[in-house]
């Protein structure tokens, strides 16, 4: 067994602690209402749906809830034939426009439940 392995063996608990802190910071908020990233997700999708009909299969949402910064990526494929008439020049029937919306949100939740720190 390598020295590194012996060492890393002892360091798994701090990793667990950090993962839990990030997770719980988001979960504690979301039991009251929804956490910020989830709210943004719903509202962004609602706004888009108001203007264009997009096939929900063509919507890809990924999140990464972080400690200081969380990221939300909404990737929507919009068929070119729904684009406004003025914008459509040539009749390239099968091409599709890709609209990516990316949001970064500073984590809204405190890392500890009480002000014990």
């Amino acid at each position, binding site marked *: 067994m390598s020295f590194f392995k012996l060492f890393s063996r002892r360091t*798994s608990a701090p990793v*667990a602690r950090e*993962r839990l802190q990030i997770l719980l910071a988001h979960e504690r908020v979301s039991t009251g209402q929804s956490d910020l990233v989830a709210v943004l*997700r719903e509202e962004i999708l609602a706004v888009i749906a108001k203007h264009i009909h997009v096939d929900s299969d063509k919507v890809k*949402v990924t999140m990464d809830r972080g400690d200081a910064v969380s990221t939300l990526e909404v990737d929507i494929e919009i068929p070119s034939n729904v684009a406004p008439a003025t914008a459509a020049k040539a009749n390239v029937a099968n091409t599709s426009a890709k609209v990516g919306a990316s949001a970064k949100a500073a984590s809204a939740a405190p890392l500890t439940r009480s002000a014990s720190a």
Partner: protein
Amino acid sequence: MTKVLVVTSGKGGVGKTTSTAALGAALAQTGQNVVVVDFDVGLRNLDLVLGAERRVVYDLINVVQGEAKLAQALIRDKRIETLSLLPASQTRDKDALTEEGVDRVISELREKFDWIICDSPAGIERGPTLAMRHADVAVVVTNPEVSSVRDSDRIIGVLDSKTLKAEKGEHVEKHLLLTRYDVTRAERGEMLKVEDVLEILSIPLIGIIPESDEVLRASNLGTPVTISNPTSAPARAYADAARRLRGETVEITIPSDKKGLFNKLFGRRAA
């Protein structure tokens, strides 16, 4: 042909979620397309054990209720590309899970995966029966301890009566997975032995997972033990169990990490 496998036990805390993650990873590591589905609505943990907790966008309930497409809810593992997770909901009521909804999700998953592994919640009521409903194969997770063995016996009865297979007069293939097994304590007579448990439950053995600190370390890191330390005793035990699930004949042993004198002298006898 897709196989639907339920990891169940009756009793709580015996190692269902740990085993779902490890068997799922082990099967996926052999190239099989695997999805692990968390049926523990309200108390999801499979995401955490797999290290995907920060990436959950939608969950099983969203899909069941038609609020999200299956493809949007599936999370692909970053280490093994043939492994995917369908997380449970953490906030929704478990009554949101309906039979029809589960039927629909499972039949959609069947089109995409070779293995659908369902992590059952503890108990014998609605949650566990929904988790086992579509099972072709069941892994009954049991600890060598009286209450766990008794509850496994109960859940075997439920598998024989409340699954779709049972309703059709067919049988769910049942396998015993003995977890948290401590050779030394079993030898000292402090813990039930493998033979004892097998004799009482009389279903075939798919593997013996030793009690090991590597399991705790793996869950701390959010990495199934077959990835975090593939040569460790529990990882080898899970990998062997996965091969048996695929139909291979692999001799059953009790892998061990301990190299102490005591284990050498006494541990051998149990193997």
